């Protein structure tokens, strides 16, 4: 373990944010499923408890999002999220090809990580979508549902609260898909647990990924 192959990718504030977010999202998905698929014969937990936990962790994610947003704005971490549109499709195809075939042939990754590049193009696009569209969308619809009197009652004869609830559940569903893929992709590395260790101690081992 030489220090040259390790980069300090994840500063402490980012790791705290990520930890709180990970835990909260897990609780939110679990309690959300319990409410969305509520059935008297099958329930994962008490409905009232699910509602209360969902509210508490929803607010936690909201406050925590501010930490992410402000942290990203104030520190150099923002540079990793800058997306160049030119040639993006080409770069994405290169990355997909690596994940679906290149990595099995022991080819080198097309976008090796270094101090200037923390995310490969696929990661960058997914993280941007997740953190700047999905999560804010969930926070806005979630807060609206927490204060339902703020929701417009009727939009072109469609129930406002219904549309908000369906949008909230759909975005939540997409986050659960993101989570599964995120966890799996994190296991791709020199050792399947390397990346999980990185997000705890902050150091990313670039020699294997």
């Amino acid at each position: 373990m030489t220090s040259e192959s390790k980069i300090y990718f994840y500063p402490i504030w980012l790791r705290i944010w990520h930890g709180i977010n990970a835990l909260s999202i897990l609780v939110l998905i679990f309690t959300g499923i319990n409410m969305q698929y509520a059935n008297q014969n099958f329930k994962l937990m008490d409905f009232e408890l699910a509602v209360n936990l969902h509210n508490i962790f929803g607010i936690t994610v909201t406050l925590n999002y501010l930490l992410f947003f402000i942290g990203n704005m104030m520190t150099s971490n923002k540079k990793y999220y800058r997306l160049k549109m030119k040639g993006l499709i080409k770069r994405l195809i290169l990355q997909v090809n690596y994940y679906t075939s290149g990595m099995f042939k022991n080819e080198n990754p097309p976008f090796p990580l270094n101090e200037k590049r923390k995310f490969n193009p696929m990661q960058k696009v997914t993280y941007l979508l997740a953190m700047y569209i999905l999560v804010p969308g969930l926070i806005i619809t979630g807060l609206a549902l927490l204060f339902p009197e703020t929701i417009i009652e009727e939009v072109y004869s469609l129930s406002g609260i219904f549309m908000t609830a369906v949008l909230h559940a759909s975005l939540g569903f997409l986050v659960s898909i993101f989570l599964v893929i995120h966890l799996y992709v994190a296991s791709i590395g020199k050792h399947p647990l390397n990346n999980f260790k990185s997000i705890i101690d902050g150091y990313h081992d670039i020699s294997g990924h």
Partner: protein
Amino acid sequence: MMNPLYILNKDHLAAGVHAKFKCTDCHSADYSKYPHNAELKLEPLSTCLDCHGGDAKYAAYKFEKIDEEFQKSVHFQKVGESFTCSKCHNQHYYQAKSRNSSEVGEIVGFSNDMCMSCHSNNNKFLLFSNKLKPELSQIHDWLPNQELHFKNVRCIECHTVVVDSLSVSHNILPKEKALKNCVECHSKNSMLEASLYKYKNIQSRTEKGKLNSIISNKSYIIGAYQNEWLNNFSIIIFLMALVGISIHLIIRIIKK
């Protein structure tokens, strides 16, 4: 000078179920003169069942069964015979909203106003009880989104025993026995289907298709508005993601 409380509101009277009646159909013939004697107020009046009971015309509404259920209710048990139908169903103004309106909010509002006429008015409450009325927002403080529930759910949804053969259950329960289990309504087989949403006028929308009826409703009930198609669709997408990951993982292990 006449007691203003005895003056009927003509508009409400005209909208009520007994609008076509002459005053003297129910009251004594002396009422046809105005002004009439104050003592007339003390005349014995017919009860609702005198007309509505045992009559083939009203058989579908099962007034006898309603009476039977009502006698089990906390209102009758605590107050007795003097708690007449008209304590809730004002005979001059009553409208069959739950059968005729297609707006959930209107049905709920009309129904809850009957309860509120005493339960949010100590003067009336004290006519039947020697205690002050309980503060409703306080005793319901366990209920999330209280205001929204009060606006969209009838009190009787939780405070009565649902009887399938009656369109509105009349056995109002003592508060200890009220429903407090969220999943009774917030679930695939929601109890609301057997009470509030049992009315044909609300369900008619269901015949247009489930999704259509759901999105045109003014309210949204978590858990109760499940769409099989969307449920299955989301499960399929999730499984596809898992299958994709599994295939990738297997190739990773083989090629290692």
